[in-house]
């Protein structure tokens, strides 16, 4: 086990002092107070903790801090730029793609990861990619609509 002194989050180098085997989720939430990223299951089954690591969506509850060193981490708090929401955030609002909102950060981060890989995914690809994210309020049809809307908006 080693101590990690710094990670890069939302475009800034953030000083920390944490064991490398702690989860990225725990460090983001407890050490950096970036609480938009949620705990949902701790076993990578619900996607509430999804963040981007070098542009790819990962489950932060299954990612060790050590694995995040030297990578560019983006959380839900890092999507808004100069007061302007990311197109995926806008699309979630426009389609009303949430009820309680607890899964929303993870849904949005997964969707941003998907659109980073393929800006124009078809419905089947959206479903396949998002399958690991759970919305217990079951707003799935609206989330699919939001991603389709954002995909048009980003092109």
């Amino acid at each position: 086990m080693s101590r990690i002194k710094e990670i890069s989050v939302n475009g800034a180098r953030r000083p920390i002092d944490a064991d490398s085997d702690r989860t990225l989720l725990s460090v983001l939430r407890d050490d950096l107070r970036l609480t938009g990223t949620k705990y949902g299951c701790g076993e990578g089954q619900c996607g509430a903790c999804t963040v981007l690591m070098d542009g790819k969506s990962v489950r932060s509850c299954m990612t060790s801090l050590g694995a995040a060193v030297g990578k560019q981490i983006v959380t839900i708090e890092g999507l808004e730029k100069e007061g302007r929401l990311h197109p995926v955030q806008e699309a979630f609002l426009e389609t009303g793609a949430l009820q309680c909102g607890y899964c929303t950060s993870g849904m949005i981060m997964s969707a941003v990861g998907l659109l980073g890989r393929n800006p124009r995914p078809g419905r089947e690809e959206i479903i396949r990619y998002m399958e690991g994210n759970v919305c217990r309020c079951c707003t799935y049809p609206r989330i699919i609509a939001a991603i389709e809307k954002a995909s048009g908006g980003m092109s």
Partner: protein
Amino acid sequence: MKLRGSEFEIEPERYELLDGPAYKFDLERRDFFRVLGAGILVLIPGAGDAQESGGTVQRDRNSVPEDVGAWIHVDPDGIVRVFTGKAEVGQNIRTSLSQVVAEELRTPVDRIRLVMADTALTPFDAGTFGSRTTPVMAPQLRLAAATAREALLELAAKRLKSERSALQVEAGRIVDPRSKRALSFGELSGGEKLLRTVSRDVATTPPDDWSVTGTSVPKVDGRTYVTGAHIYTVDLTRPGMLVGKVLRPAAFDATLESLDASAARTLPGVTVVRDGDFVGVAAPDETCAAEAIRALRPVWKTMPQPSNKDLFQHLKENPASSAGRGRGGPAARGSIAEGMAAADYKQSATYSVAYIAHAPLEPRAAVAEWNGPNLIVWTGTQRPFGVREELCRAFGIPQDRVRVIVPDTGSGYGGKHSGEAAVEAARIARTAGRPVRLVWTREEEFIWAYFRPAGVIEVSGGIRRDGSITAWEFHNYNSGGSAIAPVYDFPNQLTEFHPSRSPLRQGSYRGLAATANHFARESFIDELAHAVELDPVVVRLKNLTNPRLRSVIEAAAERFGWQEKRSSNGSGTGIAAGFEKGSYLAACVEVEIEQRSRIRLRRVVQAFECGAVVNPEHLKNQVEGCILQGLGGALFEEVDFENGKILNPRFSGYRVPRFSDVPPIEVVLVDRRDLPSAGAGETPIVGLAPAIANAVFRATGSRLRSMPLARGGIKL
């Protein structure tokens, strides 16, 4: 063999059991203004007053009523604060209630602030359940807002020296169109300490003139969710806060014989709390708390308990000692014997439903802080005042020393009526002497929360060749009595709910009993229709005069194209209809059986009618959510347990609906502006399971009578 005690007996519809003595609010007039500041205050008498006076309150309009249901305060800055004990758990009532107030005050929605579910700031409320917010709280707030509007008009008439009847209210201002002078709400309420009690005869806006209610106002604080800024209980921190964690017993009802905590106590910063069978730790962080729990050496005494495989027999053979609670007891009309004698075809069938878990994505959590003898707890619950009661009982302290605050919560579905995490966090915090945050793990949530009741339903009935159902006998064991009475006009009927001693801790769930009763009723009607070779829609309409239920059946059948659909080998269509908590629905589905074992939904059409629609998009969102959550319970959700242990307490072992399960869904909203608005967070869940079972039968000839229907694949 030990069974769970009376504490967790079946609660058929929890709100019925909670209707206790009216709460006596003890604030004096001066206290309101001390807390709220100057302004215009409108108090809304609670249910107790309304009942005593037969609905018309005759009192001095400037006095504080004994029993207050909610209040509205117009601040000197023109912001309208609305205080209600209801909690936001994702059903979007923060938005719908804002709409109602904005409408009556003729002021933009963004000038309305709801203060919700805080026992120190909001009036008593039994809880947010039973689809009661829209039919009960919204009309109260509408009256209060209209009363506030009238008070503002009175003030404006005086200040502007205008005829009151000539004044207009628009965009948060009172305007005299003749003099062109105007005063904003803030200008009017500044410096005032004006108190009004709601007048029941104040004019409210008729639904045909609605311009804010009845429209799809977006979620009022939606931006805070898509940016991750919203603070749930799990996100709260307090100065000096520690992390709490509970040592869970080896099985339900285990008792702690001994505990060796010596290793845990040596960990830096760790406090171990033992109080009877309760053991918890406080630690500087989550990692350390988990390590401390692992370092504890408990010896548990367990005892044999029923298992899932014996569940249905168990429920039938173990009646609850307090039979008659809830809606237990028979309801009869006509004569079953005569009805059976008149039938051309008679049948009996047994249906069952499994225990299922709410699995709210935000697990139970609480932050507890003691300040001397006073306790503040932040927690996600649907019953803040109920949780305050639990805390008072647990610590033997009076209500005025406990404050419960509910941050808008990561869902509940009826699963967050209780205050386990609140009591646990407060107990640990008391010993640790510091604030404590305690968040249940997913596994704890699956095991130590409560479940939707399992149940067995036995039905027998008779039908004539013309489709009239002549006899209907229906017995529900354990899953609840709500919606057990058919809306159909069966001339001879007997329905009865039989409470059982539940092997698992059970409680509220979205439309819990209605789901089970509709599953059995709507499946059995289909069985009878098939026996006399009549169309299931025809049979339903033949036995039904209720115009509201008829209209949703016709609306769903028409949109679905029921007449044109023909079932063939491998695919089939099914319909189910129902009524619960003031609203009506009908669901049509088309299923396809893949690889002779997997049920795939090709299409769902659901018509829903809940009176006048308050917010069409949010209503559609609720209906869609209910359909898909209902799909989980219909097809695959099931709690598996054995001898006091839950065997599948993880998302990897307990399957919930996911993106790939979503069929094309069409929601047909029947908007009845001529009828009062009913709640809609529960009823849309009840139709899907029987509609699927009926469609599977048409596709395969196999009748599935046990939910979840696709348990381990269907057998054909």
